[in-house]
Each structure stands twice: as structure tokens, then as C-alpha cells.
């Protein structure tokens, strides 16, 4: 029986982050795909509070919430460090992950999916917030420095998913003109060996996003 299991969803950036972290550390694991429109007894047992993926099971013990799982992986297994060692740098890494996840993602998503004025307002808000991220990546190859680290792994929505939604919906938010450093990071990121094998295929993601925007769609949709 596998010592490490991951309950995930192939299209979820949160799930893919954990896979990236596991692979960086060379951890062997059993992957269990979850149908989020019909949640399994397994998921409900191991994440009764939030009922979401990803959930890591290590020797039968569950850990939920991607950023918490990634810190756990970093602390438990040897291999390249995901978080910096210095407490101040660790605090900064945690800060940027929280900022990107809690502040940037929703307006970015709404900029592409909300109609009319709501979409325009979201676009303006996202544009302002992304300036901070642009500033942060300015003089660095990766957020983690020379190598990918916690922030790079966690910024995968900006790094990959958003580009697909943006293109599909014809929105020009994250462009080379406005965010040259962030776009350069994206190029390096999606070609990085540990990242590119952990991204869902673009055509399949495009189909998923198309489905989200269809009227009468009744399957799983991320809550935004």
C-alpha cells in the first residue's frame, strides 16, 4: 500500500502545486483523481471541513490546504528546499503566496468571466495588484531566486492557468507590454523541468474553461 497518496483534480492549480512539490522532493505517491461534481466518501472522510482537493495522505494521516501541505512536504522529506531557510525570507515567501492566492486570483478570474462593468472593475483591480507582483519578480529569475521555490510553485495560476483563460475570453490583462518581468518569469517557469510535466494540457484546460461559461452547465465550477 502506498505510504503517500494525493487526492487531487487534474485541472486544479492547487492540486498541481502539491504534485510539483512531491516531485521536487522525489517522493513516490499514489494519485487519486477526484470527481468534484460527485465527491467521494474518501474525500469527505479526509477533508470533512472544506471538502476540497488537494488532500495529502501520509501513512493514512490527512493534510489539507495546498500551502499547508507544501510546507509539510518541505519539512518531512529531504531534497531541494521549497521554502527559504532564513526566517525573514520565509515570511516574505508566505506573504506573496497569500497575496497572490487571496487577492489576485479572484479579480483576475472575474476580469475574464464577469460581464460588463463588474468585469471592467475587476480588470482594473487585477491590473493594480499585478503591479506589485511585477515589482517583486523584477530582478530575479524566479521568486525563489535562482531556483523555483514556494512562491513560484504557488503562483501557477498566474504562470499558466490564467494565460489560457485570458486567451479564450479575449481579455488583455497580463501582457508583455504591461508586465515584462512577470511575462519573462512565465516563460522560464512553464519551461522549467519540474513545472512543464505538471501542467494539464492546454487544449483540455480550454475545454474545461469553455464549459464553465456555458449556460446551463451543471458540473463542478470553482467558487469565485
Amino acid at each position, binding site marked *: 500500500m502506498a505510504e503517500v497518496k494525493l487526492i487531487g483534480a487534474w485541472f486544479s492549480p492547487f492540486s498541481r502545486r502539491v504534485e510539483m512539490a512531491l516531485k521536487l522532493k522525489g517522493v513516490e505517491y499514489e494519485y487519486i483523481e477526484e470527481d468534484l461534481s460527485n465527491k467521494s466518501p474518501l474525500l469527505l472522510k479526509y477533508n470533512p*471541513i472544506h471538502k476540497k482537493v488537494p488532500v495529502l495522505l*501520509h501513512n493514512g*494521516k490527512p*493534510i*489539507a*490546504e495546498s500551502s*499547508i*501541505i507544501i*510546507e*509539510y512536504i518541505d*519539512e*518531512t522529506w529531504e531534497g531541494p528546499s521549497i521554502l527559504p531557510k532564513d*526566517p*525573514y525570507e*520565509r*515570511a516574505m515567501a*508566505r*506573504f506573496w503566496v*497569500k*497575496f497572490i492566492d487571496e487577492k489576485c486570483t479572484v479579480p483576475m478570474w472575474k476580469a475574464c468571466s464577469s460581464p460588463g462593468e463588474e468585469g471592467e472593475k475587476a480588470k482594473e483591480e487585477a491590473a493594480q495588484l499585478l503591479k*506589485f507582483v511585477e515589482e517583486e519578480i523584477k530582478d530575479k529569475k524566479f521568486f525563489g531566486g535562482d531556483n523555483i521555490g514556494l512562491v513560484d510553485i504557488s503562483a501557477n495560476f498566474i504562470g499558466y492557468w490564467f494565460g489560457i483563460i485570458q486567451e479564450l475570453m479575449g481579455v488583455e490583462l497580463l501582457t508583455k507590454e504591461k508586465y515584462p518581468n512577470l511575462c519573462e518569469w512565465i516563460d522560464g517557469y512553464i519551461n522549467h523541468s519540474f513545472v512543464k510535466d505538471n501542467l494539464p494540457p492546454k487544449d483540455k484546460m480550454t475545454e474545461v474553461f469553455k464549459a464553465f461559461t456555458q449556460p446551463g452547465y451543471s458540473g463542478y465550477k470553482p467558487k469565485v
Partner: protein
Amino acid sequence: MADEVILLDTDFSIFGMRVRVALAEKGIEYEYREEDLANKSPLLLEMNPVHKKIPVLIHNKKPICESLIIVQYIDEVWKDKSPLLPSDPYQRAQSRFWADFIDKKMYMPGRKILWTPKGEEKEAGKKEFIESLKLLEGVLGEKPYFGGEDFGYVDVALITFYSWFYAYETIGEFSIEQHCPKLMEWAKRCMERESVSKSLADPHKICDTVLMLRKKHGVE
């Protein structure tokens, strides 16, 4: 060389109080600076340009923002005294999970209780708030603290809400003791610690301020 530690905060902030408790647990000397959020200081805007919020800890001129990130930083830097996070990685993950739960499932429902007029939204806030507290009471179980035998990270994350309980109860018209007696026992146990009793703001002053602001903004 002595550490220079400055805390930018406001006296009633649930989040700021967490940092005060953590600093007191570790016996760290620091300079407290009260911010006027209607007139933010240049220092606050410089040290937290992204959110422009308190609390901000400035340690040897370097800023750290977001209360739980600050508490973890304090625990990692001043690691030789009163550890707040457990040493076992799995227990640490559980502590982080519950602190994250507290942030996600208590603050906003609490705001609904205090700042919305009588009606559905307020009642929904109350329901979620009580449910969250009950869940946390279950997590506490028979332990003296969320940290087990010792006061820890989750205790820090939650205890500061205690100073706002009187306001929630008064304005929400409910009794937290009635729903969660064991949690109230835990809160009183925490208040016996000087680090907590000296860091938490006066519940009656908080309630008076909320009532005054509600009246000012015409919230019924």
C-alpha cells in the same frame, strides 16, 4: 547588538492582538505604535505598501505583515523560548490548518453580526460564527489548550477573538457560553496568562465603540 522591534497596530485589532500575545509569550521588548487608520502614517505606508494594513512588525528595520505570518516569524526567530508551533511536522500542519480555519470562518461571519442590520445576512453570520466555534470546541476536546499541555499557535490565533465576544453577544443577541461552555473555560484559562490578559483590549470598550459606530452609520 540589541534587536529593534516595532509594532504598528491599533488597540482593538483582533489581528494586532495576536502579535502582542506572541511577543509577550516570548518576552520580547518592543515599541508599540498606535496607528490612526483614517490617517495612516508614512511609516505604515512605507512598510506595508501592498495592503496598507496593521499589524506590521518591523524587526531591525525590516517589515513583516499579516498576523499569522508575523506570529510564525516570531516563533522561528525567538525559537529558544515558549515555542508556539509544535515540533512534529504533522502536528504543525494541523496547527496551521486550524489557524487558517479561524481566519477563514470566523472573522467575516463576525463582521456580519456586528455591521449588518437585522435580517437574513446577520442571522447567517451568527449561524456560521456559532458553528465555527462549536467545531473548534470539538477540536479542543479535553485538552487545556489547542496546543495540548502548552499554550500554542492556535490558541494565539483564536484567543484574541475573545475580547470581541462581548460585542458579538450584545449586538448579535446570543450567548457564546450557552453554545460553547468548554470554549469559554479555555478562554478564561488563557486569560490567566499575563501575555494574554495584558495584550487583549477591554471587551466593554470594544463593544461601546462598535455601538457608537453602528449609530453613526445608521445600522439598525
